[in-house]
């Protein structure tokens, strides 16, 4: 199912996010170092994309550019034809760790982006997303008293509360233990299926990518290019021991250049 064409769009869906010839170069000690180059990608509304690649390949930098935190040195990112230049509440980046504000309670964090709403609307929205991420009863708890998984739930809820078009997740479960990570994947899928947001999810975990994504974008090592885009054509809920799952997983491992016999 791998496509050699980098620009892939599901038939019949209009691309919302369009990444064209995106490249990033920075100078270090007078030398030009390319982080990634010629990244082309179209993503349609409510699509779930995973970006995988060898560690240090520039996945996180790419995500920061897509979210507007960093500027690319060539190419463009547009959403609905509007060019992305700067952070914006319409696209929220969820960080791997320490992303919640420790001086605010769970409710305070989730309501962080809602200061323009009336008090009643804000409380309603907070209550809704507390429920969405299943943190009922923890509304008035501070992050220092939450587990790592719960903090990530708070971050996802805070992001969803402002009703963004795109959710960017930068290895959001990378700092969690393996059991919590599996639970959180299920939670994220459940939330994504009810909210239908576009999700761009950076991970270095092959299984995570095959379990979650509609399409997996495989990056090469530095300077990163799109090696391939793999469509995961298994409906949710996915059986992780089905032949098709294992086949796609093997394919992904091969694309990344890993031997799958250790």
């Amino acid at each position, binding site marked *: 199912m791998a496509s050699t064409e980098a620009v892939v769009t599901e038939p019949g869906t209009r691309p919302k996010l369009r990444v064209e010839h995106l490249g990033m170069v920075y100078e270090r000690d007078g030398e030009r170092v390319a982080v990634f180059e010629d990244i082309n990608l179209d993503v349609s509304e409510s699509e779930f994309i995973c970006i995988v690649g060898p560690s240090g390949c520039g996945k996180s930098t790419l995500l920061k550019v897509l979210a507007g935190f960093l500027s690319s040195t060539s190419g463009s990112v547009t959403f609905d034809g509007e060019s992305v230049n700067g952070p*914006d509440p319409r696209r929220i980046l969820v*960080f791997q760790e320490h992303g919640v*504000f*420790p*001086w605010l309670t769970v409710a305070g964090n989730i309501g962080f982006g809602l200061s323009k709403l009336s008090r009643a609307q804000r409380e309603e929205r907070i209550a809704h997303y507390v429920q969405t991420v299943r943190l009922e009863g923890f509304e008035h708890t*501070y992050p*220092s008293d939450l587990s790592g998984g719960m903090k990530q739930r708070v971050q996802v809820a805070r992001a969803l509360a402002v009703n963004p078009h795109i959710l960017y997740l930068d290895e959001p479960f990378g700092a969690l233990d393996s059991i919590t990570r599996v639970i959180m994947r299920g939670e994220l899928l459940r939330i994504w299926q009810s909210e239908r947001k576009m999700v761009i999810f950076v991970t270095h975990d092959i299984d995570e990518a095959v379990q979650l994504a509609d399409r997996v974008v495989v990056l090469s090592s530095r300077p990163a290019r799109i090696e391939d885009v793999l469509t995961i054509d298994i409906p949710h809920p996915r059986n992780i021991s089905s032949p098709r799952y294992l086949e796609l997983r093997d394919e992904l491992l091969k694309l990344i250049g890993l031997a799958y016999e250790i």
Partner: protein
Amino acid sequence: MKIPVWLRPVLLITALLVVWQVAIDRHPGQLLPGPIGVALGILELLHHGLLIKYVVASLFRVTWGFGLAALAAIPFGLMLGWHRRGEMAFYPLIQVFRPISPLAWIPIAILWFGVGDLAAIFLIFVGCFFPLLLTAMSAVHGIPAVYFNAGRNFGLSPSAFVSRVLYPAVVPQLLIGLRITLGIAWLVVVAAEMISVNSGLGFLIVDARNAGNRYDLVVAGMVIIGTIGLLLDLGMRSIENIKSFHWSSSEG
């Protein structure tokens, strides 16, 4: 038998007081008054109404000197911490002024403000300004980039950014800096009062010595200074322990 935690320091202090009194009784002389003499001295000061008057005078100067220093140094320090170029410009100057003891300013303070409250307040201000400035600068440097990014992502205006991200992020560091600096203020006020005013606990100590070698009153003044210093520290610690201020210790 298990001794409750709160009782331990009480027992230790009592034991030391007993040792002190016994030692003084065995070797009476001019070296030091005993604890009973000191206690009588404190009572005498209370009786004359001097104790309250002097404590209030000292606290008044500390409040002004420390408060003005906090008002000036914290916003300035936060600004310098935020604007690295400004910091680079000011840094050498700050490092030149910082190691000058506030006591070195006493002649200047008297020259500018004469003998009185203003000179003492100025000295406390000078003693507190630089530590607070450096605390505020390093508090900004210590904010994790992820808080800035998260704040920027939700489209905050610059003023909202300051009040909702920058300020809460530096509060724990600032409170620690304020507590330590309040201790400095309390040190400086005693020294300032010994030279530049005619009231306060520092004045009490010099006056007791000059007016008849009343060392019981000297030590009484020292005990009161120490006790109030302890209370100030406890007060600041209780502010630090407020939950929404206290986050840094568990969230590094």
